C-alpha cells in the first residue's frame, strides 16, 4: 500500500537532521497557522498563489530563493564546523550523514537558491524593461514557479522522511546506481530535479518568446537594455541545455527503476557517458546563472555611474559569444577521466577563450564608471565587489583549464574555491545587487542602506576569508568531500575558514535585519515617483509598485535608454510627456492551475520515490485533469476600464510632476 515507506524512514536515531527538520516544520506550520488564523489566506490565495502576474511570480521566485539560500547556508555551517572539530577525530557528523549534507548543499544552492533567484529577477524585470504588460504565457509562468517550489519541497522532505543522496550534487554512476546507492536518497534527487527542471524549461520558453515577440513599439533588438540581452542568452541556453539534463536523469531513472544499463559498468553500459552528458548541461548551466547576473551588474553600474553603458554593442557581442562558447567547453570537467591529449587540448583552448568576452565585459563596466559620478549605494557596492573578486575566480578557472594543472588540482579544495569564487561573486552578489536595485520597484519602498552596506562588507569579507583558505588548502593537497582529516598543516587554514563562515553569517543576519528594518520604516523609505535611483530603462517609467497592467499606454521607444530620453525631455521642457489616450486594458485572469499541477507533481514525485505506484497514477491523473479543465476554460481575460487606468496613471503623473518641479527649483536656486 505504501511501497517502501514505513515508520523507520524517519531517522529517529539521527538527532541533527531530525531536530533541524522539526524546527523547520514547526516554523512552517506556525506561519501557516498564523496566516489562517489572521484571515490572510483568502488574500494570499487570490493575490499570490493563483497570481499570473509576472511581477508577483518573480517576487515569489526570489522569496523561495532567499529561503533556500538560508537552508543551503546552514548546511555550509554544518560542514565547516564538522571540519573544525574533525582533526584526527570523527567529528560530530558520521560519514553517511556528512555525505548527504554536502550533496544537499550543492543541490539546494544551485537548483533552488541560485536558479530561482535569477529566474525571479528576469521574470520581474524583463517585461517591465521591454515596456510590455506581461510575459508571453502568464499561466505557464505560474506553472513553472510552482513546479520549482515542488522540487524544493521534495528535497526538504528528504530531511525527515528517508534520506538524501550521498553522491554529491552530480549523481555520478556507478555510485548512483542501485547497486551502490540502494536507498531513496538518489531517487529524491532525481525526482526533485526532474520536476523543477520541467518548470525551468517552461520558464525558459516563456521568457525567450516574450523577448523575441513582445517588445514595446520601436524597441528593436539593439535598443533593449543589457539585462534583456543577457536574459535572452540565458534562456536560450536553458532551452538548449535543460533537455540534456532531463534526458540524462531519465536514463538514470530507467537504470534504477527498470534495470536498464545506460550507465552501469556491466552489460554494455558506460558510466562515462553520464559524465559527458551531465556536464554538457552542467557547463552551460553555470552561464545560465552567470549571464543574468552580468545583466544586473550592467544595469546597476550604468545607473549609479549616471552614464550609458560603455560600448553597448560590444557587450551584446560578448554576451552572445559566451552563449555559444559555453556549449563548447564541457569536457574540462573531466580532463582527468580518460580523454586523450588531443581532445583535452581542444577543450582546454575553447575553455580559455571564454575569458576573452568575459574580459571585454569587465573593461566595459570599468569604462562605464570612468568619468561618471559614481554613487556608492548597496547595489553598486555588490557590483564593485563582484568585479574585484570575480577576476580572481576567472583567472583560477583559466588555470584549471590547463590540463596538466588540472591533473594536480582536480577535485581538490582549489577547485572548490574556484567555483565558489565565481558562483558567489557573480551569481550571489548579482542576486543581492538585483534585489536591492529592484526592491523599491516591486514593493514601493527602498531597502535600508546602512544595513545593506553592513551586509555587503561582512558578506564579502567572510567570503574572501573562507575561499582564500580553500585555495591554499587545495595547494596543500587537501581533496574535496572529506569527512575528517589528520594533516596538521591544514588545521590552521580550516579553522580560519570556519571563522570566515562566522563573518558571513553576520552578513546574513544583517541582510535579514535590513529587510525587517526596511519594512518597519517603509514610510520614510517610500518611493513616490517610481524612479528612486534616477534610472535609465523603462521599468522606472511606471509607478512603484507598478499597476497590474504595468503601463497605462505602451511606451514608444526612439533609441537606446528609452526612459532616459523621456526623462531628459521632461527635464528640458519642465513638463511631462503628453498624457496618453486611455483605453481599457485586457489582462489575464488569475488561475490556480499552476498550484494544483505542482501539488499533483509533488504527489507523483513522492510516490515514485517510495514506490507507491497507485499514488503516482492518481497524481498523474489529477495533473492531467487539471490541464484539461484549464484548456476548456471559457473566459481568459478580464477588462480594466479606461477610467481606472486613467486614475492610476494620473496619480503617478502628479507625483512625478511634483518631483520634476522640485528638482527644477533646486537647480534654479
Amino acid at each position, binding site marked *: 500500500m505504501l511501497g517502501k515507506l514505513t515508520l523507520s524512514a524517519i531517522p529517529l536515531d539521527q538527532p541533527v537532521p531530525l531536530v533541524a527538520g522539526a524546527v523547520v516544520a514547526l516554523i512552517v506550520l506556525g506561519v501557516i497557522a498564523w496566516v489562517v488564523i489572521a484571515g490572510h489566506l483568502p488574500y494570499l490565495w487570490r493575490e499570490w498563489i493563483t497570481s499570473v502576474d509576472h511581477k508577483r511570480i518573480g517576487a515569489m521566485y526570489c522569496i523561495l530563493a532567499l529561503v533556500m539560500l538560508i537552508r543551503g547556508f546552514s548546511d555550509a555551517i554544518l560542514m565547516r564546523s564538522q571540519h573544525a572539530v574533525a582533526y584526527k577525530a570523527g567529528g560530530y557528523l558520521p560519514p553517511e550523514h556528512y555525505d548527504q549534507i554536502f550533496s544537499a548543499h550543492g543541490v539546494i544552492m544551485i537548483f533552488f537558491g541560485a536558479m530561482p533567484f535569477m529566474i525571479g529577477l528576469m521574470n520581474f524585470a524583463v517585461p517591465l524593461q521591454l515596456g510590455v504588460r506581461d510575459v508571453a504565457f502568464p499561466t505557464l509562468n505560474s506553472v513553472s514557479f510552482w513546479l520549482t517550489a515542488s522540487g524544493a519541497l521534495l528535497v526538504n522532505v528528504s530531511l525527515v522522511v528517508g534520506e538524501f543522496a550521498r553522491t554529491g550534487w552530480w549523481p555520478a554512476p556507478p555510485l548512483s546506481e542501485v547497486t551502490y546507492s540502494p536507498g531513496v536518497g538518489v531517487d529524491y534527487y532525481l525526482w526533485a530535479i526532474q520536476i523543477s527542471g520541467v518548470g525551468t524549461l517552461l520558464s525558459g520558453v516563456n521568457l525567450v518568446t516574450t523577448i523575441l515577440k513582445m517588445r514595446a513599439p520601436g524597441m*528593436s533588438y*539593439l535598443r533593449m537594455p543589457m539585462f534583456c540581452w543577457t536574459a535572452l542568452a540565458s534562456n536560450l541556453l536553458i532551452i538548449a541545455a535543460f533537455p540534456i539534463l532531463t534526458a540524462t536523469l531519465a536514463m538514470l531513472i530507467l537504470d534504477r527503476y527498470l534495470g536498464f544499463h545506460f550507465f552501469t559498468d556491466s552489460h554494455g553500459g558506460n558510466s562515462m557517458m553520464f559524465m559527458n552528458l551531465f556536464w554538457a548541461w552542467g557547463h552551460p548551466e553555470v552561464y545560465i546563472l552567470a549571464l543574468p547576473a552580468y545583466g544586473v551588474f550592467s544595469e546597476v553600474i550604468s545607473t549609479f555611474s549616471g552614464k550609458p553603458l560603455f560600448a553597448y554593442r560590444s557587450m551584446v557581442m560578448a554576451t552572445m559569444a559566451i552563449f555559444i562558447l559555453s556549449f563548447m567547453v564541457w569536457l574540462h570537467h573531466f580532463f582527468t577521466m580518460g580523454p*586523450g591529449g588531443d581532445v583535452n587540448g581542444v577543450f582546454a583552448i575553447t575553455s580559455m577563450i571564454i575569458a576573452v568576452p568575459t574580459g571585454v565585459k569587465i573593461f566595459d563596466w570599468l569604462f562605464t564608471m570612468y568619468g561618471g559620478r559614481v554613487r556608492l549605494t548597496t547595489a553598486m557596492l555588490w557590483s564593485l565587489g563582484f568585479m574585484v573578486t570575480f577576476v580572481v575566480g576567472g583567472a583560477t578557472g583559466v588555470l584549471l583549464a590547463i590540463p596538466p594543472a588540472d591533473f594536480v588540482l582536480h577535485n581538490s579544495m582549489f577547485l572548490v574555491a574556484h567555483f565558489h569564487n565565481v558562483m558567489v561573486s557573480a551569481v550571489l552578489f548579482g542576486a543581492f545587487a538585483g534585489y536591492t536595485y529592484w526592491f523599491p520597484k516591486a514593493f514601493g519602498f527602498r531597502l535600508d542602506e546602512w544595513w545593506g552596506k553592513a551586509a555587503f562588507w561582512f558578506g564579502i569579507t567572510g567570503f574572501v576569508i573562507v575561499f582564500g583558505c580553500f585555495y591554499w588548502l587545495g595547494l596543500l593537497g587537501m581533496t574535496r568531500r572529506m569527512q575528517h582529516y589528520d594533516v596538521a598543516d591544514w588545521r590552521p587554514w580550516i579553522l580560519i575558514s570556519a571563522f570566515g563562515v562566522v563573518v558571513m553569517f553576520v552578513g546574513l543576519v544583517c541582510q535579514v535585519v535590513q529587510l525587517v528594518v526596511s519594512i518597519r520604516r517603509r514610510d520614510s523609505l517610500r518611493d513616490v515617483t517610481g524612479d528612486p535611483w534616477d534610472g535609465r530603462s523603462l521599468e522606472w517609467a511606471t509607478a512603484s509598485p507598478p499597476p497590474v497592467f504595468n503601463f497605462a499606454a505602451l511606451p514608444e521607444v526612439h533609441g537606446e535608454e528609452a526612459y532616459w530620453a523621456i526623462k531628459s525631455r521632461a527635464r528640458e521642457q519642465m513638463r511631462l510627456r503628453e498624457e496618453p489616450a486611455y483605453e481599457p486594458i485586457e489582462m489575464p485572469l488569475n488561475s490556480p492551475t499552476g498550484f494544483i499541477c505542482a501539488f499533483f507533481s509533488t504527489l507523483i514525485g513522492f510516490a515514485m520515490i517510495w514506490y507507491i505506484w497507485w499514488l503516482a497514477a492518481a497524481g498523474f491523473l489529477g495533473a492531467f485533469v487539471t490541464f484539461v479543465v484549464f484548456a476548456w476554460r471559457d473566459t481568459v481575460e478580464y477588462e480594466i476600464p479606461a477610467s481606472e487606468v486613467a486614475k492610476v496613471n494620473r496619480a503617478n503623473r502628479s507625483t512625478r510632476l511634483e518631483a520634476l518641479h522640485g528638482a527644477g527649483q533646486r537647480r534654479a536656486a
Partner: protein
Amino acid sequence: MSHADHADAEGLDRHQTEVAPGEEFAEEDIGKGIRGYLIGLALAALLTVCSFAIVHAKFVWAPAVPVAVIVFAIAQMGVHLVFFLHITTGPDNINNVMALAFGVLFVVLLIGGSVWIMSNMNSNMMPAMPPSSSPQSSQPSMPMIQPMRH
C-alpha cells in the same frame, strides 16, 4: 540600423503586423495553404519511395547507395522545413531561421562532441574485450593513461 528604422516608421502598428508562428495562414486564403501542404506531402512521399527504391535497385553501383540515401534524407528534411514548418527567407521569418540554426548548431556540437569524446576515451581504455586473433591484444595490462590507437 535598418531594423530599428523599420520598427519606428510603423510605430504602434508593429504589433498588429507581427503574427505569431502558425497564424500566418489565418489571414491568407485557405486553399493556398492546403495546396502548400499537398505539394509537400507529394514531395516527401516521392523522396521516401526513391530511397526505398534505390536500395533495392540492381542497376546502381553499390557504394553509391548510402550516399544517395543520405542525399534523399537531407532533401527530405528540406521539404519538411519549407512546406510543413514554413521556414522561408522572408524578413518576418528571421526568428524561425535563427531558432533552426541554433538548434542545428547545438545538436551538432552535442552529438558530434559526445561521439568524439566517447570514442577517444574508449580507445584509451584497457583492452577488456575477449582476445582477438591478433597477438598484441592478449598482452596483460596496459597503462591507463598511455593512449592506445586501434
